[in-house]
């Protein structure tokens, strides 16, 4: 009987302690997550913006769009999370920034499992630069090996293919939501 009693007391105290800790850290954790998101967005847009300029829009399917608004509330750009399963060893997740005209600004890699030193070069400038200002039409969204326009990375064709695929998918999602009226 004593065992049960002691276990209950210890369980009670640990739950209490955790409840208090959770209460204290709740706001800092939310703030930290917010800060990480804003920093990630800052990196991929070519212009400056304030935290208040970011508006998060969630569509019916639960997909999040981060809209950046200018001074007169016009849309300056939109960012969206996009991913591809075609990676060498798993999913590649990107944060893609698109201009109001449907051109790619830039992307950053949020998560990947590609080989360090080979596949992870999709994070680097020379590879990313190829997508700048490209739109969904007028660009062949394939690597050169597959007859497209993207220069694949040496020894990392699969990673290059996956990154290209992810960017293209992100662009499609954005165009479907924002430009479906005036396309084609």
């Amino acid at each position: 009987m004593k065992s049960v009693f002691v276990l209950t007391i210890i369980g009670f105290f640990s739950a209490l302690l955790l409840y208090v800790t959770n209460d204290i850290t709740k706001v800092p954790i939310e703030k930290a997550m917010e800060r990480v998101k804003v920093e990630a967005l800052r990196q991929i847009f070519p212009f400056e913006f304030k935290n208040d300029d970011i508006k998060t829009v969630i569509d019916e399917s639960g997909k999040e769009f981060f809209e950046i608004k200018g001074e007169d509330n016009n849309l300056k750009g939109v960012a969206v999370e996009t991913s591809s399963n075609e990676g060498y060893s798993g999913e590649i997740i990107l944060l893609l920034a698109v201009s109001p005209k449907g051109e790619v600004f830039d992307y950053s890699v949020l998560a990947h499992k590609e080989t360090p030193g080979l596949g992870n070069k999709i994070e680097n400038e020379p590879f990313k630069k190829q997508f700048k200002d490209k739109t969904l039409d007028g660009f062949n969204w394939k690597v050169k090996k597959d007859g497209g326009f993207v220069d694949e990375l040496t020894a990392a064709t699969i990673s290059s293919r996956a990154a290209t695929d992810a960017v293209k998918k992100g662009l499609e999602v954005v165009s479907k939501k924002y430009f479906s009226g005036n396309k084609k």
Partner: protein
Amino acid sequence: MKEVLLVMVSAIFINNVVFARFLGICPYMGVSKKIATASGMGMAVTFVMTLATAITFLLNKFILIPFNIAYLQTIMFIVVIASLVQIVEIALKKLSPALYQALGIFLPLITTNCAILGVAILSIQNSYSFGISVLFAFCSGLGFCLAIIIFSGIRERIEDADIPECFKNIPIALITAGILAMAFMGFSGLVK
């Protein structure tokens, strides 16, 4: 169907618990000297891992999330796993003495096997469905079996080899594991 196959191949070979995720290294190093004990440990781990993931999945879905107490995840899961191991031990003793003979001595060691807790948390982080979670856990267990059985086979041979005094036992085992990990890296890209 494609997803099921992908999860299986990934859990057994590509993201092998031992070689790619670094989970369950302690029993991997500790009980891999003989093939017989290694396969016993592997089976015990697979069994408990599958059961634990199923239970923690339900616990997470029907208790932690509805009551908004996700921060109690670690403590809940470890307590559940510890008691699960105890229950399995008692149940096996009563129901199947033969199986208890085979797995019994490994069960207490499993409570502090980080692969069990790790796989339970991973399947929640990956937001798998219930079925896929259980499959993922089972295949991760198989991956562990595969890793530890191959490894114990090699270690049995190494025992007789002439190696420098300071490399005997653990250091040479670690280096062997490194070479095996390299072999398992060959599996990445397999799905493509």
